[in-house]
């Protein structure tokens, strides 16, 4: 029995040693010449990609700022924690950041579920939290310390519905979504509401469990209803497979999705099956704005890969915090929080935005059309276009 135990322990140790570690800095005594930014993201497990690409964007911005001498002579220091793709773990590391590391401001997370769990911790500690890309409306309702620099799912869902109804002039839509995913289900709900309010009909809905890798039955169900367009608010790892299954069963209607589709791998994973489909996105990668092009170039030079929208939002989150330090008049938590409420017409990579009274970024959504090898901007929808 002892050998058995030893073996189990050895395996546990191995498993743990394989889990990518966090790049924690020892909490050193409050140095006067640095500003601590807590970062909590999924760096391992199912959504590790979200965290890693966001962290790249954050790192790029911090390095740029520190190279130019920091903020008011102080260096930005990141304290990074891995949430292991779990909302519970997000709450745990949020407590560490708030009580042990005593960060001035926190950036995280991508997944709304994690942000919602972590938010009350920062709220209680009076530390402002900026989510780069959690789009669920509940996130910033957790308290007056919780901010975000991305648009919301209700706006995203409504924009997709308006685009499908008004611009593409489709009247019959079907929805395929992940039943157990807040993001997917939330977008499906908002799309359904807006599309029917405009006068369209939802002819069929088919749900799946988020971990599914096979969508034949959902496709069969939707194919029978013969929709004009299929709304698929899912992540990029699924959409390629979903699109392939639709085309295999002879469904030619275009698919429409949200920012979850976005990835440098999108077109490759889908093959030609997504040609002529559309999705809503945070910015236009072909935008000639020097801010966008400069960011793309710097990112590619530093990481040798293509950035995605999560990187851009992480990048913008850091610069938004820096702007808040300037507007708030200092780098204490209270001053940064105050500064964040004053962000107005901030010019970032992901567009020009202001933080509204709900502590959400008011910004436009860019609808992109997928071509053979590239993405083309077809429409920009402003918050004022959607009521």
């Amino acid at each position, binding site marked *: 029995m002892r050998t058995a135990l030893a073996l189990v322990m050895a395996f546990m140790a191995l498993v743990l040693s394989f889990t990518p570690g966090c790049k924690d800095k020892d909490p050193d005594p409050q140095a006067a010449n640095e500003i601590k930014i807590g970062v909590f993201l999924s760096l391992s497990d*199912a959504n590790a990609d979200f965290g890693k690409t966001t962290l790249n964007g954050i790192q790029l911005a911090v390095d740029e700022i520190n190279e130019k001498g920091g903020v008011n002579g102080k260096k930005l220091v990141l304290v990074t924690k891995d949430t292991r793709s779990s909302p519970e773990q997000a709450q745990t590391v949020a407590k560490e950041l708030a009580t042990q590391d005593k960060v001035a401001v926190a950036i995280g997370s991508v997944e709304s579920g994690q942000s919602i769990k972590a938010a009350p911790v920062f709220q209680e500690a009076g530390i402002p939290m900026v989510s780069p890309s959690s789009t669920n409306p509940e996130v910033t309702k957790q308290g007056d310390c919780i901010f975000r620099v991305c648009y919301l799912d209700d706006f995203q869902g409504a924009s997709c519905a308006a685009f499908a109804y008004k611009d593409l002039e489709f009247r019959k839509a079907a929805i395929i979504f992940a039943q157990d995913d807040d993001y997917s289900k939330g977008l499906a709900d908002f799309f359904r509401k807006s599309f029917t309010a405009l006068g369209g009909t939802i002819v069929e809905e088919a749900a799946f469990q988020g971990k599914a890798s096979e969508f034949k039955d959902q496709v069969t169900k939707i194919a029978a209803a013969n929709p004009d367009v299929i709304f698929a608010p899912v992540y990029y790892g699924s959409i390629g497979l979903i699109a392939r299954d639709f085309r295999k069963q002879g469904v030619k209607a275009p698919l429409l999705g949200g920012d979850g589709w976005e990835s440098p791998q999108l077109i490759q994973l889908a093959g030609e099956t997504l040609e002529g489909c559309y999705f809503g996105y945070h910015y236009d990668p072909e935008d000639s704005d020097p801010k966008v092009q400069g960011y793309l170039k710097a990112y590619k030079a530093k990481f040798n890969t*293509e950035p995605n929208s999560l990187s851009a939002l992480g990048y913008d989150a850091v610069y938004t915090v820096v702007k808040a330090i300037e507007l708030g008049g200092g780098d204490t938590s209270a001053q940064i929080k105050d500064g964040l409420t004053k962000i107005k017409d901030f010019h970032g990579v992901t567009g020009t935005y202001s933080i509204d009274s709900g502590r959400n970024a008011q910004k436009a959504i860019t609808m992109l059309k997928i071509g053979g090898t590239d993405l083309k901007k077809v429409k920009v929808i402003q918050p004022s276009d959607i009521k």
Partner: protein
Amino acid sequence: MAEADITSQLLQYSANGLAKGSTYALMAVGYTLVYGVLQLINFAHAEVYMLGSHFAYYQARWAGYLPEDSAGKPESVPIGLALGFVAVAMIACSLVGMLIERIAYRPLRNAGRLAPLITAIGVSLLLQYGGQAVFGTEPKLFPTFMETEVYELGPIKFPNTNVLIVLTTVVLMTALTLFVTKTRPGAAMRACSHDMKTARLMGINVNATISLTFGIGSAMAAVAGVLVAMDQPAITPLMGVQIGLKAFVAAVVGGIGSIPGAALGGLILGVSESVVGGLWETSYAEAVAFVFLIVVLLFKPSGLLGKATREKV
């Protein structure tokens, strides 16, 4: 909805389920073989499946059939070479399976039931997380072994990948049944399954037979991994979790320890998931699998084709 529509949908769901069930069956065999011989649930089997598709993926990548950057398009792999990749993946997976048995299960063979079970879960997690560390977490595009073609049979659309899945499963299951019932190593496997001590006394090399069992099961998992990846060409280190669970259910439903049981369990599970899920509510398909498991076990505790065994006291 028109009557004809329902019929054609029902047929399409059955076709979907047939392909899905075949992959469950291929995987269930791995659980059943090992259980038959060792009474061990080899949870790491699902990860061997994952490794199978990754081994094939990396060979194709190193051979230059996948684009280096994320924007490029993959080239089609010639059929002969693809078969070679699959053969190598099968051999590699067999070795991994045997290695797992040698390192993680054999030292615990006399340590009761619980210890190897925990180790099996440990190996499974090790491979899931180790896979994330080594292969990366992003989904990878599986190389094109076969250009997709869709056959239409009346209202049913059946892609060639699914035809291949069903045919391969039939061939492999038949071959395996013949191997176990007609050959000497097969007889040795049956003897070990029946009574390991007596088998040893009869001069059967028990360790070699157990290794062989793991090797065969793992090779079939590799084939399943490649077949599924050809149909759904995005592979990740966690791809084994779902199918592993379903195949395990299929093995238990069919009667764990029985090869025809694994085939039957897989097919019934696949088709019922598709038909019930499709006609009722697609997100409940998962629940169907487990309701099915409970119902079968209530009436036939040893599974549909399992042998009823009396507990020796």
